[in-house]
């Protein structure tokens, strides 16, 4: 989530700018007065979306990228626009599907049942993998290579943040971090489960996701209760001492 750049890029910057580099990748102040620009240039967008349509046949490969460039009316050489090669198709899929979630979220009722909203949104996002699910293991392989690991973790963190924000979560205590980490873990495991799922309409994935979210909810509820219990005991102890006239 933190360092998305190679070490030498980091070291090349003056020491006082490094901390801002580290945090740069984290989403900053979200303004409602201006739409955030789409992160891909029109050319990239055209080539990558065309390449994505070739993934079911060619897989996440340089071949799909070349086909995509041809479809979009560019020369084969224009794949040099993408130094990360096949991984750029994976990233395009992740980013564009994450941004597409916002449109779907308008049908939700925020603040009513956040867990239910999260489940709906996460399922919607998982279903976006349907057309390429038989190739998704290739994408997972690319995502887990050392070179791309930082980008994949960051993308997962951003997805988790997006899901929670769209579902209407307004927690800004330390559970901001734990909620995001837990949801990221649940989503990643559900995505992996889906690649092995042969049930009709991915019903089993849906059940898997719901079970994991429920478990998370239970753990969180338990921890909350425990925290409250400890607080009550401590408060009671202090009040007891005060009633005995001890100066605390």
């Amino acid at each position, binding site marked *: 989530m933190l360092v998305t750049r190679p070490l030498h890029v980091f070291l090349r910057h003056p020491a006082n700018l490094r901390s*801002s580099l580290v945090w740069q990748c984290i989403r900053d*102040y*979200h*303004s409602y007065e201006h739409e955030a620009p789409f992160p891909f240039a029109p050319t990239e967008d055209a080539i990558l979306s065309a390449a994505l349509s070739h993934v079911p046949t060619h897989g996440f490969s340089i071949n799909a990228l070349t086909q995509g460039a041809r479809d979009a009316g560019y020369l084969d050489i224009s794949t040099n626009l993408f130094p990360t090669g096949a991984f750029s198709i994976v990233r395009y899929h992740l980013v564009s599907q994450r941004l597409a979630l916002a449109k779907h979220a308008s049908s939700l009722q925020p603040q009513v049942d956040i867990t239910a909203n999260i489940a709906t949104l996460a399922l919607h996002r998982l279903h976006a993998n349907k057309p390429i699910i038989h190739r998704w293991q290739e994408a997972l392989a690319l995502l887990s290579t050392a070179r791309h690991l930082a980008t994949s973790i960051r993308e997962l963190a951003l997805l988790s943040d997006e899901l929670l924000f769209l579902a209407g979560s*307004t927690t*800004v205590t*330390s559970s*901001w971090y734990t909620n995001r980490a837990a949801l990221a873990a649940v989503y990643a495991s559900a995505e992996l489960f889906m690649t092995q799922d042969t049930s009709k309409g991915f019903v089993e994935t849906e059940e898997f996701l719901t079970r994991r979210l429920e478990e998370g909810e239970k753990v969180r509820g338990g921890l909350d209760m425990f925290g409250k219990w400890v607080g009550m005991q401590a408060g009671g102890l202090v009040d007891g001492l*005060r009633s005995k006239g001890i100066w605390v």
Partner: protein
Amino acid sequence: MAARSFFSQALHRPTPILEFLFPIFAVHRSRVRYASITTSSASPNTEPSPSSLDRSFSAKRRKPLSEKQRDFLDCALRVNQAGELAATLIYTHQTPPITRAHPHLRPIMHHMYSQEASHFSTFNEMLAKHRIRPTAMYPVWSAAASILGWGTGLMGREAAMACTEAVETEIGRHYNGQVRVLLGWVKEMEERGEEVGEEVRELVSTLKRIRDEELEHLDEAVGEGAREAKPYELLNRVIRSGCKGAIWISERV
């Protein structure tokens, strides 16, 4: 008025640090002063209030906030939330020992607490709305603020008030710096003939209101004998440098 004059005095008080003995500290101090985005010694009296803060335009063009500006807001609002969290907890834990020893202070303590609680919820809403992450040091600040509040509460009325004075001095300075930066943006936008967005306008007025309330607390604390605290100088120094350190860290993590 009294708070303001005290405030400017407090800022310009010479610091008897033996710089020739500890040159490392001297260099470090000056670096911190220039590097931090939120320190300012501007007096609220000289603060400009551009007319575009109250007016609303529709015909003029608008520009999105730059990345640097969004970064600034990100840091600033995160620090503000952490600060209000700490303030709320300090007052929460000071109140029982203080009101038991001095029942006449109950309304003041309650008044200060409820204002801090409302500031805290204001910043909580802003963070959630603008998708800013809270500081990662949240549990650390909670513990530190509770201990500080409880400890100074046990030390008595004067120590508690000295704690309030020190904290509010730093907080006032911090908000003042932010208001100044935001007013600088407003001025730039006006010069370029752009509309000042609703978000910035609202933020400036909220910050100004909150800063004035914090300075009121400072005034009340001095009125209640903050200066009579026994090791006043020590308490003041330690708490103020603690605040500065916490602000520095919260801006980053």
